[in-house]
């Protein structure tokens, strides 16, 4: 009864185009006013929670990673990474497209966001591909899709949000994303290679060993970031949040002193833009925490979890249902909101069915990737349509074949837990 009511209020608010954060907060407020004998004291909890909900050092990795991503995107590192990727795979059939995918995978190791990856790599590689005679649609599809690697390959803002909302270890989750992330990059490259053979896309001249070495040296300082972040977290030198702060400072040095894409006087603009995004994310997080507080105090996760157990769903059926639900949700909301709302609901069920929380996190992340290249709210589509100066509809059509590739990959990741769990199991046993 209460479940239906809460979800109904939320749905109505969401459909009226109210910002998701406000809709979440209003649902809690409405519910409290209607159903707890309306006393100001009970409602006081709301304003208090809006502060205490954020009082966690783990959450603060989000603004730090956003800042470091902003610095790197504007700092001129993308061009170096692309040069290195081109030197490695540019000579193959469809080499430019394959290099774009590889560059996205590399860039994903230093950025925690997918749209950022699309912007950084796409704004260089998309015009280049079109110039070399690739069909524009194919080029846009490749960029928007491989940009989504940004949230699967660590560091990842989406994974941090999952870790925060489920109290799982962000470090473990990062490790769990490594193999699925690079495997997906491999799958995308394979699909591209086959398409390129069939359609006879152009190749680039083979890069000399010297060029490979020189371009590696150029990209080295950027790629070091992932070594610092992952090595630091795994080696126990710092927590994920501290790693994010170190990454931000490192990106500043790389962008201003090494690659010189930014000047110190650009910093206010960069800081403001990073603050804008992180404040938006933190605002959704606060309200989602408020919302899940309401869910918990109404015992809704327990009720749902009991219901699922009573249905005697087998784990694979549950995972299928989870994937369908997430894909549907991905049509309407952006990743952080979905994870914040659904992860606390799904996790207790998953646990009672013996599904590893880390594995569930990876499944959710891959789902979010699909949502990002699927209309109507796929963020990557917006960004790609902006870069390519194509309409949203055309970009969506361009991405459609890739949606099926990702769906197949999702099935693989869902039903072969070892892909996600092997590396963290090895490192954290």
């Amino acid at each position, binding site marked *: 009864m209460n479940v239906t009511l809460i979800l109904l209020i939320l749905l109505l*608010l969401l459909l009226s185009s109210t910002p*998701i954060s*406000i809709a979440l907060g209003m649902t809690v407020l409405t519910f409290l006013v209607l159903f707890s004998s309306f006393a100001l004291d009970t409602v006081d909890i709301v304003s208090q929670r809006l502060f205490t909900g954020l009082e966690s050092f783990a959450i603060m990795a989000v603004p730090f990673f956003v800042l470091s991503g902003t610095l790197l995107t504007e700092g001129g590192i993308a061009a170096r990474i692309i040069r290195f990727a081109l030197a490695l795979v540019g000579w193959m059939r469809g080499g430019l497209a394959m290099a774009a995918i590889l560059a996205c995978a590399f860039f994903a190791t230093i950025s925690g966001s997918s749209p950022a990856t699309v912007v950084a790599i796409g*704004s260089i590689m998309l015009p280049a591909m079109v110039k070399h005679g690739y069909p524009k649609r194919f080029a846009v599809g490749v960029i928007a899709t491989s940009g989504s690697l940004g949230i699967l390959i660590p560091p990842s803002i989406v994974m941090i949000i999952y870790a925060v909302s489920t109290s799982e270890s962000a470090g473990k989750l990062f490790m769990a994303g490594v193999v699925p992330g690079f495997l997906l990059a491999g799958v995308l490259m394979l699909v591209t290679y086959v398409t390129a053979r069939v359609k006879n896309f152009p190749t680039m001249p083979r890069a000399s060993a010297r060029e490979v070495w020189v371009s590696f040296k150029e990209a080295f300082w950027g790629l070091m970031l992932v070594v610092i972040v992952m090595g630091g977290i795994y080696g126990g030198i710092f927590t994920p949040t501290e790693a994010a702060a170190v990454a931000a400072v490192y990106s500043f040095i790389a962008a201003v002193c090494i690659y010189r894409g930014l000047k110190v006087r650009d910093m206010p603009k960069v800081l403001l833009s990073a603050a*804008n*995004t992180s*404040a938006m994310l*933190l605002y959704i997080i606060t309200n989602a925490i408020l919302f899940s507080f309401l869910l918990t105090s109404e015992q809704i996760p327990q009720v749902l979890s009991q219901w699922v157990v009573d249905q005697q769903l087998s784990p694979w059926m549950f995972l299928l249902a989870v994937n369908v639900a997430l894909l549907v949700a991905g049509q309407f909301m952006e990743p952080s909101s979905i994870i914040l709302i659904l992860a606390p609901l799904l996790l207790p069920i998953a646990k009672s069915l013996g599904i590893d929380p880390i594995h569930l996190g990876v499944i959710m992340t891959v789902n979010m990737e699909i949502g990002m290249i699927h209309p109507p709210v796929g963020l990557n589509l917006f960004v790609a349509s902006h870069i390519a100066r194509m309409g949203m509809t055309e970009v969506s059509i361009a991405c459609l074949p890739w949606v099926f590739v990702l769906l197949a990959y999702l099935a693989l990741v869902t039903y072969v837990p070892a892909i996600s769990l092997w590396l963290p199991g090895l490192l954290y046993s």
Partner: protein
Amino acid sequence: MGRIFNRVLDRLEEWLIASFMAAATFIIFAAVLHRQSSAIPWLWDYTGALNFSWAQELCIYLFIWMAKFGAAYGVRTGIHIGVDVVVNAAGPRLKRVLVVLALALGAFFTAVIAFMGARWVWFIHGTGQVSPDLEWPMWVVYLCIPLGSALMCYRFLQVMARFVKTGVLPVPSHGSAAEEGA
């Protein structure tokens, strides 16, 4: 007069959130450096005198303040996205009504939070509670809720007034990809 007030408010808002961001980054970086260098014996004379145990708390407070005021700035830049499937499918008149309704809801919610936040601050003021590490009065720390929320409410009303007058909404520089300032 009103125009000057708005200008000053805009700049103050931007300056505040950018500085909070920079300060938090610097503090955590310094704290990490300090902890690592404390392990080096010959540096101990210098590092031993410093104490960074308050760094995490300050970082959290800085970011919460940034989040509350940044959320208000976000209304101005149109970064708080909602589900716009229905709105986009609706005719121009219904669309107008829905957009105004959504903005009004935003203004209402933030006004309620500002009011309740103020009550909460007043209550904490009475208890004389201080923060665990920095020992700052908590009511000052909590002030960001009523202040930030009131500013956010003001921004919603501003955006609504402009929409009613001109039909223009702030457009984020493409989705949350504004994220990386693209």
